[in-house]
């Protein structure tokens, strides 16, 4: 029986390093190719030796699909394609294709130039890798080869984020990447049609959370920023350059405008301007409101938010700084954090999820003393606030997506094991479908039971539909009969007569003739009529005819009467039928052998 296999190389009962292998209908697909922010060693990248011990991956993979530009979903891509070796197609949406190389280059610079690591991918490798990218449009059905087709759906999460529907024959899998079921200030909500995949592979970052309304969270966020500014504190908001940053910028921009605030807002890194430009050019990927009004007022042109310079961090007085990266694991956000951590007036707001091992994760867990490089320790005195602004679906959202897509099986990735376990229980209970949560390197196998597509002759189909009437009768199902012709890869269902014709075969007639002797003191024609009347009363719903040429026909069975020369009362009934009437013919002969009941009229 056909089956689909799913093996996470990363993001199995874990967040970070998303990389999931899917085998479906003889095709192998890699979904995402991310890196882990929490590690600096081999564990940073997925273990591609699972696919093949030596040699290139090209022969083992039919395609690679990247769901969005976050590094935990695409950070290992140049390593995989250029250093391990993969030359097949890599699919991603236009915005992802635009932004992903910039983030990769940024990441490379931090790793190689700042940390001095060697044996890492180069700028040229990023470029070569991007040459293998085939852009994907929303809802476009892309034929990877004759059998494998993929289709992207809007996922919300970040600009250009997509969910993908992967289909081979009548088997299919949906991979959500990261998604968001509620529209936010700059992006719309994820959407998918009722595609009934065999497996829905969903992220489950917020598997156990049901978040309060977005508005409350926004109000909370603004209140905290405002209070801190009022008492002269500095607010650090570690973000990734693209995504949440733009949403929070829009939020602060409108708030500053409304409250007429003067404290400066800065955005670190030179990427800002550029990042906002991407949003302007890919405005069709933002939410409806922004799209509708972009001609009059482009939401990504900010008045209050200015570029940050390193020296500003020591300026006196309140300020708000957006700095990258978002998990405080390196770069400018970490530098500013170190500077400001000692003052309790200051505040750091973590607007997104932090993976284990990062400083972001540590301070969110209440750690107040941090070990820094070179055995130094850092006392964390500033206020630490966590605001769940990262745009992942919460438990409610995940359930909503299941309702939308109606999968036959569910598979959770990109979440923590304990939380997944809880959600798995809920899903199995509410939808009565199996839910899998394989760990990294573990394979989940799902048996599929596909229907077999065949080409049925229109004549046969129309005949059946006309006979069957508009509604099937459950008590008396009508069965249709035909012949299935299997030739090479084609399957044709035709009527038996047509099958004979198409195959150039002659029909072979099998007939039976049976003589039944009985005593009946009447003339031959009278006996025949008695037979007719007898059968007529016995068989309801059959065509029985008494023909003028001296035969009785029951359907196509012929009955004749003759009498022997010696005894006029000794009648011989001659029954003749074809194999197609075998049941009826055999039944009639046994009925007639019992003789005719008396009481029958002779004419």
């Amino acid at each position, binding site marked *: 029986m056909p089956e689909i296999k799913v093996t996470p190389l990363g993001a199995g009962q874990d967040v970070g390093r998303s990389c999931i292998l899917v085998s479906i209908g003889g095709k192998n697909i890699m979904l995402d190719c991310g890196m882990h922010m929490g590690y600096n060693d081999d564990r940073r990248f997925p273990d591609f030796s699972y696919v093949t011990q030596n040699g290139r991956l090209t022969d083992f993979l039919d395609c690679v699909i990247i769901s969005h530009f976050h590094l935990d979903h695409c950070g290992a891509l140049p390593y995989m394609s250029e250093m391990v070796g993969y030359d097949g197609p890599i699919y991603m949406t236009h915005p992802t294709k635009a932004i992903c190389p910039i983030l990769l280059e940024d990441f490379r610079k931090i790793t190689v130039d700042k940390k001095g690591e060697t044996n890492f991918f180069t700028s040229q490798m990023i470029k070569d890798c991007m040459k293998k990218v085939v852009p994907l449009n929303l809802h476009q059905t892309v034929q990877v080869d004759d059998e494998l087709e993929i289709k992207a759906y809007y996922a919300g999460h970040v600009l250009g984020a997509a969910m993908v529907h992967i289909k081979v024959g009548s088997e299919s899998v949906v991979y959500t990447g990261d998604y968001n079921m509620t529209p936010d200030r700059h992006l719309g909500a994820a959407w998918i049609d009722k595609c009934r995949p065999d497996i829905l592979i969903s992220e489950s970052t917020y598997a156990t959370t049901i978040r309060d309304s977005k508005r409350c969270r926004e109000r909370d966020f603004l209140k905290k920023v405002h209070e801190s500014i009022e008492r002269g504190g500095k607010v650090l908001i570690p973000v990734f350059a693209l995504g949440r940053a733009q949403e929070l910028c829009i939020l602060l921009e409108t708030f500053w405008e409304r409250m007429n605030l003067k404290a400066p807002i800065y955005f670190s890194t030179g990427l800002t301007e550029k990042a906002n430009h991407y949003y302007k050019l890919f405005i069709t990927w933002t939410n409806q409101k922004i799209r509708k009004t972009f001609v009059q007022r482009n939401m990504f042109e900010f008045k209050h938010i200015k570029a940050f310079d390193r020296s500003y961090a020591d300026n006196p007085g309140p300020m708000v700084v957006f700095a990258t990266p978002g998990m405080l694991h390196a770069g400018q956000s970490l530098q500013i954090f170190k500077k400001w951590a000692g003052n309790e007036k200051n505040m750091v707001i973590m607007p997104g999820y932090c993976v284990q091992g990062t400083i972001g994760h540590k301070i969110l867990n209440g750690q107040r003393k941090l070990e820094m490089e070179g055995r130094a320790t850092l006392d964390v005195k500033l206020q630490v606030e966590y605001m769940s602004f990262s745009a992942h679906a919460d438990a409610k959202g995940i359930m909503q997506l299941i309702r939308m897509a109606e999968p036959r099986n569910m598979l959770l990735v990109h979440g923590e094991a304990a939380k997944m376990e809880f959600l798995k229980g809920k899903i199995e209970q509410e939808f009565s479908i199996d839910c899998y949560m394989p760990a990294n390197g573990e394979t989940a196998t799902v048996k599929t039971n596909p229907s*077999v597509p065949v080409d049925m*002759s229109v004549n046969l189909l129309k005949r059946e539909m006309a006979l069957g009437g508009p509604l099937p009768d459950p008590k008396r199902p009508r069965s249709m*009969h035909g*012949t299935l012709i299997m030739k090479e890869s084609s399957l044709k269902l035709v009527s038996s007569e047509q*099958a*004979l014709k198409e195959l150039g075969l*002659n029909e*072979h007639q099998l007939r039976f003739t049976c003589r039944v002797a009985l005593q009946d003191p009447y003339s031959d024609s009278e006996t025949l009529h008695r037979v007719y009347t007898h059968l007529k009363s016995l068989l309801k719903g059959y065509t029985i005819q008494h023909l003028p040429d001296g035969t009785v026909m029951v359907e196509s069975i012929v009955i004749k009467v003759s009498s022997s020369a010696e005894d006029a009362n000794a009648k011989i009934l001659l029954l003749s039928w074809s194999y*197609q009437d075998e049941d009826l013919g055999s039944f009639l002969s046994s009925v007639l*052998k019992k003789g005719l009941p008396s009481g029958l009229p002779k004419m």
Partner: protein
Amino acid sequence: MKLYCLSGHPTLPCNVLKFKSTTIMLDCGLDTTSVLNFLPLPLVHSPRLSKLPGWISKDGTINLEKELKECAGRVFVDSQPEFCLPEKELLDLSTIDVILISNYHCMMALPYITEHTGFTGTVYATEPTLQIGRLLMEEVVNFMERVPKAQSATSWKNKDMQRMLPGPLKDAVDVWTWKRCYGMQEVNSALSRVQLVGYSQKVELFGAVQVSPLSSGYSLGSSNWIIQSHHEKVAYVSGSSLLTTHPQPMDQSSLKNSDVLILTGLTQMPTANPDGMLGEFCSNLAMTIRAGGNVLVPCYSSGVIYDLLECLYQFIDSANLGTTPFYFISPVANSSLEFSQIFAEWLCHNKQSKVYLPEPPFPHAELIQTNKLKHYPSIHGDFSSDFRQPCVVFTGHPSLRFGDVVHFMELWGKSGLNTIIFTEPDFSYLDALAPYQPLAMKCVYCPIDTRLNFHQVAKLLKEVQPLHVVCPEQYTQPPMTQSHRSDLMLELQPPPMPYRRCSVLNLPFRRRYERVYILPELAQSLVPTEVKPGVSIATVSAVLHSKDNKHTLQSVPKPPPVPPTKKRKRVMEEPPVAPKPLLSGAVPLEAFLATLQKHGITEVKVEETAEGHILHLQAEDTLIQLEEDGTHIVCDNNEPLRTTLRDLVLRFLQKL
């Protein structure tokens, strides 16, 4: 399968395809050439136009001086311009299930079809087609509503009257069905029915048909359509281009192997080379400016104008036009320029890669930024204070009957220094200019039509090999003005099926197969037998379920056990569950005899006949007649023997 042709205009088609119980409208083109019969709508009072004499027939019997005005030897209708709608009487528009739009020029009749007709279906279009189509509709509505005309001329449409009028009014067709422009409310309502689709997206219609738009290379978001079921394929080609302009290149390979290809929207200027025209456009423009004159370019607000601006962007400095102001005046000018920059997915590769940098894909962003190109919603307001001459003005409408262009015609027409350059191919420039005659301004005709020419389409058809081609009748003969140019027509084998307005074509199609699905349980129960090398057969008995035009076959459920109290009679009323299959093959004599022997039947007398053999089973007094295509068993009073013989014979035969 039938095709109803509601428009006779080859580039503004409107056809309805009935295919497998679905009714699909292909495009919704609005023939606007009818407006050429009307007087222009001036933005500011025009003493010239208001003083035109009314028309009275020569013998004085017909007086239509209120409705018809004479101008430069022609007669024009003095009323709000009216459009020639697609035919509405040929079929009931409320029965249309879906409308497929191929490009934004071919959807202008949409409100007439979807509103007030009982239409309840869905319209499918790409996002750029919807957004730019909306802008073009908004623009026309705005042009019309800005200068309302109280009067509506109807008397001239009277058949008896029209007959007496001078040409071309006399020959105008279906004038009774001509309609005024719709309003914004109708536009919004019509467009609210649009469902967006992406290229190569497969859209299922009622489970019966699948439609899919393909890039056609003509304009932003323009598409050809594939309409197919599992076994039949119709390709609808409308407004396609193989030239490298701004849109994504045409997808040709997906058009392959169609049973019918409906071909519309070929170039209207088969003899004009677009590149040459573009060069002429630039040189005439530069010449006029250098001589101190103004240039007027009547154009649509989207489409070729992007290419013109791009061409000028490269040309301005080399031609020393750096200080010349370029104005783009339209109520939707700003929107059109902005929208053009956000559809990266729909652009050619070159433009797409700019977005990755990130830079705006069209250079007109830079022209605007450097103040070389300015756009205004109309001549009123800011424009009047910024206006400097000599200058270049892009404005609509290309028919010269309404919009801001009318004002510039009145303003600049009297001076021989100025030039009007026609770039849009939709209107005859002589007809467009007629109500402005006599004119002193220079006229240059550089129609730029990037759609397929006859040479390209012949090559395309050779490539994609459709079984049949359907096209407007205009394409089956050379153009009237160039009747000797047999290269300006379609010559195909088999010849294309021509259509005209109001034609109903029976498309040559025979549906022979339909896709059905055998459920796994049934599939596993089938027993295939090989009848020829590589060919196997299996008899299938199944229950057919048809729902939403999807058919599935599943196993026949086992009948519930009959309660023992029921009489046999009752059982016989049930129809037999499975009828016996047909048989094929022959029973070989020797093998059959051997089999009989194995079953203890040894006394067999074989008699040869003309057709085969007769076997006499002497002990059992039974006859078996074996022939090439038949076997006859004559057996009395021994039912067990008969069934044994039957089964032995069946062993040698194939069951179908």
